[in-house]
């Protein structure tokens, strides 16, 4: 698509040119007119000059002079003939007198009638003389025509008359010559004037012609100069076009090639004559109409010989006057494109190699850890044996070395996990005070072995339950303390803890030692991976150099910061700040009083022993909503302790728990204590006949199969339920609806979310069978899942889990790939119920 040429612009241009032409055109007309006028003047003057020359050369004056002179001569001849006749008696002499008179008379007659002599006859001075002379000549006629005798007698008189005639003729001649001289002078004067004018006109003409010649010469020079400049510019452009590394192709408005430079010939492998008349589409395989009218574009070009290459095109339009043309610069960028592709490939290869390395590291570490765990376990067994002092020492060294090796492997595994992006932060609520005690307990033996004092500084008030990732926090603090203990030869290591003064949601940890300190030069890189400082500080304590790097990564992953202050020989102080907000359960975690559950008149003091957090929460909330007071124990041990000290009206006891299971715990409660006689209701996901037998032996009053519903709870608490081996939920009940009734929508949704997320997480932890999980761990996990499943009435899912637990127990092996796939399928089917996005 071509836009129409800008007509208005062209029209304006032409008008401008016309306006510039007008004065030049007028000037030229004036010059031509002037030249013509001068030429005409010259012609007129020349003609006048010719006429005057004719006048001057006219025969009149000369012939008049001649005639008058002849007249005088003839008069003299007549007088001489007369004188001769007086001296000679010969009659012949008289005849000659008559002839001479006749000749003279005929001349005089001519004078009297000739046209040329009119002026002579009529001019004042000569007119009288001529008339007088003619009269006297006529008077002589009778004498001449008389006979010889009379003539001879008249000769003296005739001689006097002839003399007089000669005198008159002379007078006429002289007068006439004088008059003619004046006339001739006038003629000459006029001729001179005319000649002067003619000369002047000729001079003007010559000057004008000189001017014209000069102007023409200047014009010629200017034109030649311009032609030269145009040629130089055009040669320069030609040179530029020919030396350009880019192909330059110029097309006319029909898309035919007009210009084609050297680089274009090279790129398209064509000769100039082959290109003549070729169209752009034939040359490049591109449709000019589909390309932008101007601008840059990268595309693929097909040469006439079929070769295709990547090219960059720069297109512009040259709309100079009427010859619209398209100029295309074309560059072969095949090499560049190939280089870019090569670079990308190299980068991808490098990244892939990097990932492969990290994966290899992770797998190796994992593979090493398993046999190492075996070794450590055997060493522990060995310690239990009766050994001699020497062997005991050997075993101690072996164990210490094994522990260090395990620690290093864990470091590397953690690092490679971080590198691979597998860094899960599992936020949960936990007791910070307990965690700190545990950490110090772990670190204390090591410190004491090194002769160090390990101190804890913390506020008198409990830090309480906080929300965060306890595993990660434990790891960071262990790394920091381990580091401090390892590199401090003597003195003390202090762990100071306090809520951040600026941000109450954050907690500050400071680990201070009295070690050799860190040189200032090393402070910047102390948190980098694989950094170990000079061996002189602690010759025996060498690490992988990963501890602090991992600590920093974890701190950042948790949204915290870590830093260090140190000076050589002045000890070191590491600062860790982590967001650990007080747990919601502590302050306002208790749900608002629930609707739908009628409170009872006699509130009971109840104990719930349940390890599953969700189940515990659900049961607690239901009971509180009914108006009872609830104490909770997270495992059998805690439950037994609470039951010993407090008198409970009723105890809910989960059966499947770690450390101390429900049956054992119940037996211990019955063995003695404040609540030894309190009714105990067993909670189980499944009631196998052999288990019910065990319950009876442990003096468990009732067995309640999950999920627990409010109605059943009320019946139990009202004491209307007889001691029965097992109570199953009422058939046909919608467990989720029941939960909603008991807890309200918001809480139920939050619970369901927790249930689904937990199941997702646990299943993921079991893996897909490529790396079979530990059998015991797998059974515990399946158990936890089954417990939750019952609470939410996930019957199919619960059955699948229970079947798998039974299979694992009977074969004493971990679930295999096929089993895990079946479980995953069952879970996905169950998951649909909760409308949670995968």
């Amino acid at each position, binding site marked *: 698509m071509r836009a129409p040429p800008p007509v208005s612009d062209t029209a304006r241009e032409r008008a401008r040119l016309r306006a510039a032409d007008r004065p030049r055109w007028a000037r030229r007309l004036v010059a031509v007119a002037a030249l013509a006028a001068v030429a005409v003047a010259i012609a007129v003057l020349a003609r006048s000059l010719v006429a005057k020359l004719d006048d001057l050369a006219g*025969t009149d004056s000369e*012939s008049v002079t001649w005639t008058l002179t*002849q007249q005088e*001569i*003839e008069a003299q*001849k007549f007088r001489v003939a007369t004188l001769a006749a007086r001296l000679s008696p010969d009659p012949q002499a008289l005849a000659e007198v008559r*002839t001479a008179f*006749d*000749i003279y*008379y*005929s001349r005089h*007659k*001519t004078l009297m009638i000739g046209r040329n002599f009119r002026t002579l006859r009529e001019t004042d001075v000569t007119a009288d003389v001529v008339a007088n002379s003619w009269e006297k000549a006529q008077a002589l006629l009778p004498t001449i025509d008389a006979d010889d005798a009379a003539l001879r007698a008249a000769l003296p008189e005739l001689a006097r008359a002839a003399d007089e005639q000669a005198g008159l003729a002379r007078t006429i001649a002289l007068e006439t010559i004088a008059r003619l001289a004046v006339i001739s002078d006038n003629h000459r004067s006029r001729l001179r004037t005319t000649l002067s004018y003619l000369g002047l006109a000729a001079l003007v003409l010559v000057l004008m012609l000189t001017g014209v010649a000069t102007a023409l010469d200047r014009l010629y020079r200017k034109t030649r100069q311009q032609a030269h400049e145009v040629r130089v510019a055009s040669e320069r452009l030609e040179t530029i076009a020919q030396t350009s590394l880019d192909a330059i192709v110029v097309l006319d408005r029909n898309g035919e090639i007009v210009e084609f430079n050297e680089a274009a010939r090279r790129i398209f492998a064509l000769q100039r004559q082959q290109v003549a008349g070729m169209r752009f589409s034939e040359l490049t395989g591109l449709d000019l109409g589909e390309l932008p009218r101007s601008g840059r574009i990268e595309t693929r070009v097909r040469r006439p010989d079929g070769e295709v290459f990547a090219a960059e095109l720069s297109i512009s339009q040259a709309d100079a006057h009427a010859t619209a043309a398209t100029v295309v610069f074309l560059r072969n960028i095949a090499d560049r494109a190939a280089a870019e592709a090569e670079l990308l490939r190299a980068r991808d290869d490098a990244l892939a190699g990097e990932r492969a390395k990290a994966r290899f590291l992770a797998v190796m570490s994992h593979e090493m850890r398993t046999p190492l765990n075996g070794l450590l376990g055997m060493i522990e067994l060995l310690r239990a044996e009766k050994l001699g002092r020497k062997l005991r020492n050997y075993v101690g060294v072996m164990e210490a070395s094994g522990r260090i090796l395990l620690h290093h492997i864990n470091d590397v595994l953690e690092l490679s996990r971080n590198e691979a992006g597998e860094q899960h932060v599992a936020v949960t609520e936990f007791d910070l005070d307990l965690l700190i005690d545990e950490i110090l307990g772990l670190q204390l033996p090591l410190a004491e072995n090194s002769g160090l004092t390990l101190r804890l500084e913390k506020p008198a008030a409990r830090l309480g339950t906080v929300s965060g990732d306890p595993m990660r926090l434990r790891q960071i603090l262990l790394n920091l303390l381990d580091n401090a203990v390892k590199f401090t030869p003597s003195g003390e290591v202090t762990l100071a803890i306090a809520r951040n003064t600026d941000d109450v949601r954050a907690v500050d940890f400071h680990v201070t030692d009295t070690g050799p300190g860190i040189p200032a030069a090393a402070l910047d890189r102390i948190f980098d991976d694989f950094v170990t400082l000079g061996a002189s500080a602690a010759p025996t304590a060498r690490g992988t150099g990963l501890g602090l790097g991992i600590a920093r990564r974890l701190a950042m992953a948790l949204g915290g910061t870590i830093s260090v202050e140190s000076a050589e020989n002045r000890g070191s102080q590491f600062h860790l700040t982590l967001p650990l907000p007080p747990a919601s359960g502590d302050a306002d975690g208790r749900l608002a009083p629930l609707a739908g559950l009628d409170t009872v008149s006699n509130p009971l003091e109840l104990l719930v022993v349940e390890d599953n957090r969700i189940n515990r929460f659900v049961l607690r909330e239901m009971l509180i909503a009914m108006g009872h007071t609830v104490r909770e124990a997270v495992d059998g041990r805690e439950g037994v302790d609470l039951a010993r000290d407090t008198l409970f009206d009723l105890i809910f006891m989960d059966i499947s728990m770690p450390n101390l299971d429900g049956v054992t715990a119940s037996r211990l409660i019955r063995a003695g204590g404040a609540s030894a006689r309190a009714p105990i209701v067993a909670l189980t996901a499944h009631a196998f006949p052999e288990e019910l037998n065990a319950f009876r032996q442990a003096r468990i009053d009732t067995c309640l199969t999950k999920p627990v519903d409010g109605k059943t709870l009320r019946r139990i608490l009202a004491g209307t339920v007889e001691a029965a081996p097992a109570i199953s939920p009422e058939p046909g009940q919608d467990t989720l609806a029941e939960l909603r009734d008991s807890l309200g929508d918001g809480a139920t949704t939050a619970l369901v979310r927790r249930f689904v997320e937990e199941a997702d997480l646990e299943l993921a932890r079991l893996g897909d069978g490529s790396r079979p999980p530990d059998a015991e761990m797998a059974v515990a996990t399946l158990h936890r899942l089954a417990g939750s499943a019952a609470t939410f009435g996930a019957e199919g899912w619960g059955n699948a889990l229970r079947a798998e637990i039974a299979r694992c127990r009977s074969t004493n092996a971990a679930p295999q790939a096929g089993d895990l796939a079946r479980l995953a399928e069952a879970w996905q089917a169950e998951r649909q119920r909760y409308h949670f996005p995968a």
Partner: protein
Amino acid sequence: MTVSALNDYSVAVPVSDGDDFGAMLAYHLNGAPMSVRDKGPLWLVYPYDRGRDYRSETILTRSVWQLDRIEVLP
């Protein structure tokens, strides 16, 4: 030929003038022989009214009146 007059005026005239210029010898004036007083006896005349060429100086000098001798030169 050389043409001469009574007063011994003389001029050379080419014979071809008769053919080229129509020169002729006049011997009568108004039906009568010409006297000397009327420029007789003979007068060599040219047709002067035919144009400028017939009134040139050369022609006029050849127009001899009172002609009395003609000498044909070899």
